[in-house]
Structure formats: structure tokens, C-alpha cells
């Protein structure tokens, strides 16, 4: 054990702006999960209607607009409710990120709803609204700027590193690829 230095490993990622990869992966996971839930729900409703009325329902023929509207409403509910209630969706929880106010305070419920409402705007013009995540210093997309929000890391990289080292020490393997942490400069 050594003392007398202030190692960077004491620094946790908590509170730092989340990067593009984490946000994209979280979004991809959310789309997969929300679509799976929607599909299961539609299948369940179809099964119930089929069982009760003895008439099979086909959702695509002549009802494409309706299903699109229902799906859009479901997506809005999925994201809006998650952001308003806890500041994070399922995918964001998995990736350890969350939505906060631009000044770092917990996001108000109405900001979560507003963020979900303006989220589609970032898809316009070939997704130019998302460019802010890459080039903006605070990694804020168009919908973040409108809703006054930012996305930060909410997981403790330091604790994860210690868990990794503990597991390596327990199994007797050398710790070669401990979880990454923020170093002094980014």
C-alpha cells in the first residue's frame, strides 16, 4: 500500500456529461425494449379479441396510420414517463446515465415530458439535431437545448473498478482491463 499521492482513480464518473456511445446504446436498447413491449401488447390484444369475437384481426391492412399513431403515442409515453418519473429510461439505467437539468439539478417532471415531445425534432434534417451530442461541448442534442436538460453519467466508475479488482484478486487473475475511469483531462 502506498500513500502520499492523489491518484486519479479516486475520481468517479458520476456527474460528468455522458458521451455519444453511451447515449446511442441506451437509445438503441430502449427502442428494442419499447418495441418488444408494444409488439407483445398488440399480440395480446389481438389474441383477446380473437378469442372473444372469433374474428382474427390484421393490424396492417388499412390501419397503418392508426398503428403508427398508437405506436408513436406508446413511444412518447415510454420515454416521457421514464424521464418525468426518474430521469432515466430502462436503457439509460442499464448504461448508467440519466437526464438532469442543464445546471445539474434533478430534472422536473415537465422537462421530461417536454423532452419527449421535442425529441422527434432531433430526427429532422437527417438527424442533425443529434449532432450536438458529438460536437457540442456539453454533449447536448437539440431536444436537450430546447428542454433545458443534459445527460450525465450516474454510475460510479470507482466502485465498479474496485469490484473488478476485488474479483481479480479473488480469482487470482492479474487485473489487466479494469473498468475505465476519467483521468485528469478529458
Amino acid at each position: 500500500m502506498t500513500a502520499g499521492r492523489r491518484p486519479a482513480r479516486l475520481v468517479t464518473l458520476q456527474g460528468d456529461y455522458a458521451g455519444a456511445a453511451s447515449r446511442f446504446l441506451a437509445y438503441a436498447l430502449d427502442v428494442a425494449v419499447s418495441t418488444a413491449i408494444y409488439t407483445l401488447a398488440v399480440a395480446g390484444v389481438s389474441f383477446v379479441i380473437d378469442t372473444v369475437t372469433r374474428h382474427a384481426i390484421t393490424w396492417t391492412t388499412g390501419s397503418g396510420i392508426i398503428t403508427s399513431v398508437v405506436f408513436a403515442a406508446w413511444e412518447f409515453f415510454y420515454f416521457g414517463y421514464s424521464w418525468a418519473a426518474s430521469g432515466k429510461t430502462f436503457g439509460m439505467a442499464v448504461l448508467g446515465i440519466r437526464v438532469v437539468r442543464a445546471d445539474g439539478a434533478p430534472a422536473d417532471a415537465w422537462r421530461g415530458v417536454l423532452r419527449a415531445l421535442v425529441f422527434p425534432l432531433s430526427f429532422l434534417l437527417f438527424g442533425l439535431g443529434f449532432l450536438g451530442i458529438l460536437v457540442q461541448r456539453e454533449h447536448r442534442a437539440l431536444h436537450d437545448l430546447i428542454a433545458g436538460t443534459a445527460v450525465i453519467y450516474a454510475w460510479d466508475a470507482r466502485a465498479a473498478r474496485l469490484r473488478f479488482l476485488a474479483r481479480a484478486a479473488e480469482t487470482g487473475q492479474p487485473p489487466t482491463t479494469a473498468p475505465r475511469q476519467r483521468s485528469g483531462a478529458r
Partner: protein
Amino acid sequence: MDPLGRLRSAGRRVTDPMEALAQQVAERVVGLVATALDVNALVARVDMNQLLSRVDLNALLARIDLNALLARVDMDEVLRHVDVDAIVDRIDVNEVAERLDMDELVEHTDLGAIIARSSGGMATEALDAARSQAVGLDQFIDRWTGRLLRRRHPGPAGPPGLAGNPAGS
């Protein structure tokens, strides 16, 4: 027979009593002077700093057997007089904790085993790995974006007052 023998004998008869008398006089005088002298006043007039500056303390200490000196000290008695609480109050424990190398601590003590047994299982391990890979990608993308945009200074790490502080999860 020594012709000077009688002369020497006569001389000794005179000088021996004189020498004894001189010794008595000297002792009497020193005693009188010592009684009359105010030693404290004399010491007060001595420039101790100047005196000490002429003393080679290193040479003095080199001649002292500190082990023998310490062997004569009753450390338990000394420590009994020490107010440990007062000393601990003056120590910034957080500062001390920050200087600890936690990696070394976890790797080389039973603390690692305790953490490994108490913290999650495969799910936590997978989550840690996925998150750390994503952060690695984030930092890679950040680096290249910074190079492409020729940024000289990195942006703020996080929102004001939140970067580096727990954000809750």
C-alpha cells in the same frame, strides 16, 4: 654528603607551611566570592544564543547513545500523558483516506475478498463491463471529435456544481 642538603631542608621547612597557608587563603577567598556573587544576575548577562551558536550540537548528539537514553524512558508513562483524542481531532481523516491507494488495498488485503463476495454476481459484472466499454467508446469519440474540431481546451466535465460529485443513480 650533599653540601646543599641542609639548605634544601631549611627551604622546605619554610615553603611547606606557606603553601598550606596559600591553599587556605584561596579556599577562603573563593568561598567569600561565591557567597557574594549573584549567579542568576551573572547568567542573565550571558548571551545564550551566541554561546549556543558556538556549540556543535551535531558533534554533541553524535556522542549520545540515544538507544540507551530511550531504553531508560518509560514510554507507557509518556503515552499516558498524551491526549490521543486531541491528536485525532486534529487529523483530517478524509485527507488521509484520499491518499490511500485503494487499488493496492483491495488487491492485497482481505478487503478485496469481502467486496467480491458482497457485491453482486454475473449481472453486476456484465453491467460494469458494458458501462466501462461504453465510456471507453465515449472517450475515444470525444478525443477524435476534439482533434477534428481542433479544440485546444476540453469542455466542462459536467454541469456546474455537479462534475465529480455523486449524481445519484
